[in-house]
């Protein structure tokens, strides 16, 4: 199992009292799977993604990535895990505004020690894949929302991670652009055999997924699409 959650709970501190968000969640996800998380706003979708992505730590339970227990990792090790194994796509794109499109893609590669001509070629290929080869030297604020999200997708995949986590990647886009973006993300991940876990409200996305997990009252209910 590539991703395994065992009795994972998460609660937040609210006015001195624990506010439970996830309660004893068990999930198994295999390599290359496309899993969609659905649920009402505030149900814990983003929290679950953050836990899988080693961005946050559970209050109880354990998360295994490729058999490695994340709970045993310190922040340094978690950062290295994110750097090598994971890619993120956020609702608000979260590109670095002061780096060009190409440099935004180069950043994860450099972090993984990939520099020079090979890294530049990889960036060019990725930009061509997402249809933005001619935007390489532009800054994020010179792009449309859809273009920015395509750059974000390219950045999440450029360093060839094993897992991509996407938190409502279409939440800030119009329907047509959202359709293009989801199609692109699905294609790229499937072509590369990358596991994709996505939190979304979009019915269209649910139709593309291998599996849908619904979060309700802190528990996960599994359903086939």
């Amino acid at each position, binding site marked *: 199992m590539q991703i395994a959650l065992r009795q994972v709970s998460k609660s937040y501190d609210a006015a001195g009292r624990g506010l439970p968000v996830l309660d004893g969640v068990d999930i198994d996800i295999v390599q290359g799977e496309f899993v969609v998380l659905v649920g009402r706003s505030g149900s814990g979708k983003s929290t679950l993604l953050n836990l899988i992505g080693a961005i946050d730590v559970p209050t109880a339970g354990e998360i295994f990535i490729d058999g490695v227990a994340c709970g045993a990792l310190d922040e340094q090790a978690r950062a*290295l895990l994110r750097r090598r194994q994971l890619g993120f796509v956020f609702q608000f794109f979260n590109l670095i505004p*002061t780096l060009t499109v190409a*440099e935004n893609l180069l950043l994860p590669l450099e972090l993984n020690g990939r520099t020079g001509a090979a890294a530049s070629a990889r960036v060019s290929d990725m930009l061509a894949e997402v249809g933005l080869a001619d935007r390489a030297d532009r800054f994020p604020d010179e792009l449309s929302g859809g273009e920015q999200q395509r750059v974000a997708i390219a950045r999440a995949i450029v360093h060839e991670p094993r897992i991509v986590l996407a938190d409502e990647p279409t939440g800030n886009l119009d329907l047509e652009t959202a359709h293009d973006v989801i199609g692109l993300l699905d294609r790229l991940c499937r072509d590369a055999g990358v596991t994709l876990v996505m939190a979304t409200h979009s019915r269209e996305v649910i139709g593309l997924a291998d599996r849908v997990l619904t979060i309700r009252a802190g528990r996960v209910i599994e359903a086939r699409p």
Partner: protein
Amino acid sequence: MSRLFARAGRRFLLRHPGQLGLALVGIALGVAVVVGVDLANDSARRGFELSAALVTGRATHQLVGVSGTLPDAMYARLRRELGIHRAAPVIEAPVRLPAAPDRAFTLLGVDPLAEAPLRDEVTPGAGELDLVRLQTVPGTVILPQPLADRLGAKIGSHFELVAGGREQRVEVAGVIEVDRARREVAGAILFADIATAQELTGMIGRITRIDLVLSPAEAALLESVAPPDVLLLPAESQGQAIVEMTRAFRINLTALSFLALVVGTFLIYATLSFLAVRRRQTIGTVRALGITRRQLFGVTLAEALALGAVGTAMGLLLGHLLGSGLTSLVLRTIEDLYYAQSTAVRPGVSIYIKGALLGLGATLIAALAPALAAARTPPRALQSRAALERGTRQRLPTLAIGGAVVAAGATAILMVDTQSLIVAFAGLFGVVAAAALLIPALTPWVIRVLQAPAAWIGGLPGRLTARAAAASLSRTGVAVTALALATATVMGIGLMIASFRGNVADWLDQTLQADFHLRLAPGVADGDSDALRPDAIATLRGLPGVAGLSLARWSRIPTADGWLQIRAIEPGPDGWGLRIVDGDPDAARTSLQSGDAVVISESLARRREIAVGDSFVLPAASGPIGFEVAGVFRDYSSDRGAVVMRLGAYRHHWQDENLSRVGVYLAPGADAGALRRALDRFAADSGHLNLAARAELRATAMRIFDRTFTITEVLRWLAGLVAFFGILSSLLALELERTREVGVLRAIGFVPAQIRTLVIAQTSLLGLVAGLIAMPLGVVLAGVLVYVVNERAFGWSMDLAVSPAGLAAGVVMALGAALAAGMAPAWRLARMPLAAALREE
């Protein structure tokens, strides 16, 4: 809605206590420095005025001798022959009390029976004073109550007093009550009968002056019959002389404190700008909900004023504490610079009111631009960060043009041909204002230059560092400007002090030519001692190893514009030791040698507008004598002015054979140690001489120099401290605003150490940019201080010395401040829960 918005603003501040605290500290420190300096200045000034008023009393005129004293028979003649009855003889002499060694006292010898028209302290009607005992028993004094309390003395008790170079025992004949306003000042004065004062000071048959209350007709009569070696001077000019003399010094301090306030104001502006930027989304939202621009402007301004009020209150309290520390520094510096003793008095409440108004005014001025910016914020949907930055960039050319115009104006002001110090400071503040406008425009250029090396050193993160600084110009511009201004101020003052120090060192090397210097001990009047009489000089010349002597008589002569120092010199083997800065040096020395000409110090030439070739009239024993001014020499020993003439000429015109100091030159190859021992014996035998080698004298002079600049150094570092808190506030806000961006970097794999490095690199880059911009600005400020402010304030010129070390120190300071300020956000961002960072708006 505006009330709710105001509430939202309050809560925003309360939720960001760090920023709130730093904003308050910025305001408080700015106000505290101004109030502290103002308190010290006012306290010293009022001390001088009250002292002068106490000593001068109701006198309209003073009769003084050109030699510094008058025969006491003149007083009797005045009353008897001229019928002037509102006159009182006075002996005013510095004395020391072994029981209170830390301060100087003044002995005021008066005739109680003549005092009534002049002063109230020692008159037959003043309380229950035993004036008969005071007048009939030798060695009796009257003490003001504060001094009696301090010495633990009461009527009939005795204590030691050093006057005329001798320690003597005196008896307390009375204690006088002093009103509260003059309590501190009166604590430094001892009263005695004139005959007792003559005995104590050794001025038998002589007095210091006669205080007079004259009608214009009486004044005219007295002037017409006064002997040539006696001058009738207006009393006010003499009493006010020290107040006037110290005015330049006090204006300097005030200006420096205002510089701290200007830096403080800029920091308030920076803080408020950051607050406005951080709340941009909230402001956009309430604009969308319908709040008007005017409401928004009003609320933002009111919020700033509330902040200003709290900061100002803190500043007043801090200023009060700072003031007491600065007062002693100011008094000590005045004592070093002007040889004038004074006592601090309780300052007026008006200073606190002024400080409060300044604090609130500065906050209001600083808040105007951010409040206008807030009011102009479009509704949320229209406002993007990119648009904000674009707007900032579009304003840069306008700012730069404004800066150039202000710089041209400041240059014009500085070039105005005037001696006004206020105009000089207006020019200096103009330079600061021009810099404040130009720096934001310069910042992206400097960053661009640093971008390539940053990328070369740090790779993509390095480029990210430089780009982030350039891209957030709406914030970094303000932070860099604040830090650059503060650094330039600290650097400019530092360069000025270093230049001054270097010039003083050179001047000392040129002036102190003799290998050993013998001077009359403090408190020994020139006429009191035989130590430097002709036979003693002959003995000195005959000592083994002596190549020659330089002889000097330093005396003070009264003029209508205050006392003037005459330095009459018979130069030694190495010449006059003067650096002539105006006039032909060789011709000036030749003329001096002839005895018909004098050279005058720069400060005297400037203050009295005397040029080379002019005739300078001095009151001599035989009446006024005009001397040709052969040159102007550089002199840092006193800004009151000095005249150098040949000793022979002085002796001839002033009929004064005394000497005050002798320089002893060591013969080539002679044993310096042996001569030193011989001179030590000579000084010890005389009992009235102090001996110092050239190096010792030089070291003492440099120590005094450093001491006089302690207050400037304190203000310099206070300005630096204000700046540090400001930059801390700015950088904290800047980095916290990047929380989400940093969160993304961490999400894609930056480890905490890399985040820390990145944040520190970003703040350091800003520090470096500020330091690089501050370098030329600091030199310009130092130039203005050296060539304009100092010349006008003190009258002396100096050469500006710009050392690489001085410049580097400024860059290091800016870098250090930015580095220190970046530590907290770096650690916080690296440790902040990542999920929270990504949620951050």
